[in-house]
């Protein structure tokens, strides 16, 4: 595959996109998990599917949309979905998690309608559902690069505000920081990263890349920065390991990436269990 990267553009696209997704998905994933918003990624990925189906449908009937990369309308849907989730979380203050299934089912419902209106699509849609290495275009690569720079820069600049908001929302508000605006920027980043990630792992698996590496690192890390660092390491290992394994064993890359992330999680859980047993034997707390 390494040789192939120098020869084939599609392999280059997949490889570099993979590196970027392996970085930004777990980076935002850490904040999502600690804020107990893990399922938001699932809801937004289904909304993204509706956007992609809408784009493909428009392309079928209007030639102006034919050449348009479906990722753009997918992103627009994802961002709108994130705004609706926020609105609903405000409406159902005591049942905030309700916002997620409402948006998830709306997204999938709308997507199914668009697909049926187009009397079914070709394999294009299948690649969005489960991810595809060959489907990543140069345009996708550039779009994802811009999103990655934007996300990394914002997380770097707003780190201490994001940390405070995640750790203690009430205290963040009482201390007088612009909690609402920062949360809004955060949700916007999540929507963009989900739309970007689905090219490689697919809509159905995108949330796993934001949560599994974090679930593993949260068990063994000391401190928040180390949690982020380990999550990114696990995310990169899953994506790159998955891409190579899938290439050589001729497997679906999305599924392979997720299964490597699951394997890392199992190892982290086992590591924690072994390490936890040791102090117990010497009478630790």
């Amino acid at each position, binding site marked *: 595959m390494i040789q192939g990267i120098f020869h084939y553009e599609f392999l280059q696209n997949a490889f570099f996109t993979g590196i970027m997704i392996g970085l930004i998905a777990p980076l935002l994933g850490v904040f999502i998990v600690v804020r107990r918003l893990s399922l938001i990624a699932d809801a937004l990925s289904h909304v993204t599917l509706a956007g992609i189906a809408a784009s493909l449908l428009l392309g079928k009937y209007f030639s102006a949309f034919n050449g348009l990369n479906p990722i753009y309308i997918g992103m627009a849907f994802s961002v709108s979905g994130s705004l609706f989730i926020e609105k609903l979380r405000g409406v159902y203050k005591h049942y905030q998690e309700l916002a997620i299934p409402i948006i998830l089912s709306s997204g999938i419902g709308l997507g199914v309608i668009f697909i049926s209106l187009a009397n079914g699509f070709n394999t294009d849609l299948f690649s969005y559902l489960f991810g595809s290495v060959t489907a990543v275009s140069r345009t996708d690569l550039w779009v994802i690069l811009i999103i990655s720079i934007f996300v990394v820069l914002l997380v770097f600049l707003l780190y201490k505000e994001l940390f405070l908001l995640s750790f203690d929302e009430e205290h963040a508000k009482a201390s007088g*920081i612009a909690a609402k605006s920062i949360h809004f920027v955060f949700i916007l980043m999540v929507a963009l990263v989900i739309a970007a990630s689905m090219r490689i792992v697919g809509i159905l698996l995108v949330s796993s890349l934001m949560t599994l590496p974090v679930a593993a690192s949260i068990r063994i890390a000391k401190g928040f920065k180390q949690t982020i660092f380990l999550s990114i390491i696990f995310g990169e290992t899953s994506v790159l390991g998955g891409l190579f394994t899938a290439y050589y064993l001729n497997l679906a890359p999305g599924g392979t990436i997720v299964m490597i992330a699951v394997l890392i999680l199992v190892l982290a859980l086992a590591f924690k269990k072994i390490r936890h047993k040791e102090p117990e034997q010497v009478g630790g707390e």
Partner: protein
Amino acid sequence: MTEQAIIEIKNLSYRYEKDMVLENINISVPKGAFLAIVGPNGSGKSTLLKLVLGLLKLQKGDIRLFGEEINHFKNWEEIGYVSQKANSFNTGFPASVFEVVASGLTKKLGLFRFLKKEDKRIVMDALKAVGMDPFSKRNIGELSGGQQQRVFIARALVSEPKLLILDEPTVGVDIQNVNSFYQMLSNLNKNHAITLLLVTHDIGTVSDKATHVACLNKHLHFHGEASEFEQMKNDEMSDFYGHEVQMLLHQHEHGGVYK
């Protein structure tokens, strides 16, 4: 005015829909005071704190902080706030004690600014002030309830506040640690010249460590110096709480709480 009050509450009333929670409250907290607000559940203590912290909008009356009307008050970093830990804190959160305390500097540093060496020293000093400096690298979830609450006080101290507000800080803290916890608060008040506002059930501690006491049950039943409060008879307290109250003055193996 000879000395400006840190908090000045005048004719404050508040209602949730039809329910009147606070009625005509007047409280003044002088500089350097340690005011304890006591009252039974549902007496409006938490609502009063939320109003003082600007988390609820004023309906009737005035609140002045450091002489400024609360609606125009901007120096929130001068106020440290320690909430009831259990309500707002996820014990599985993967953050170190140092990171939690450093987050108290967020507002003071401002947007797009990072921790410098000097700030790191301030964080360690705050941890020392509450006796938690040896735990700086531990994850917050690994500590006991009392230790966690000390960390939250250190977080409130890093922005070098002039006023520290604590909402039932000893809930979930074991009895043995409660006394040393209040001793630490008293030390902050006396040696670091921090004005304290404490909401608590713990009447025993109040009369011992606090300088001023306010008894709240929708109305203000008492507001004055702690020594006057101590002279109040048990039967007056029973009237106030609506059931029998026994003062256990400072034998902390019994917790010093009302029955």
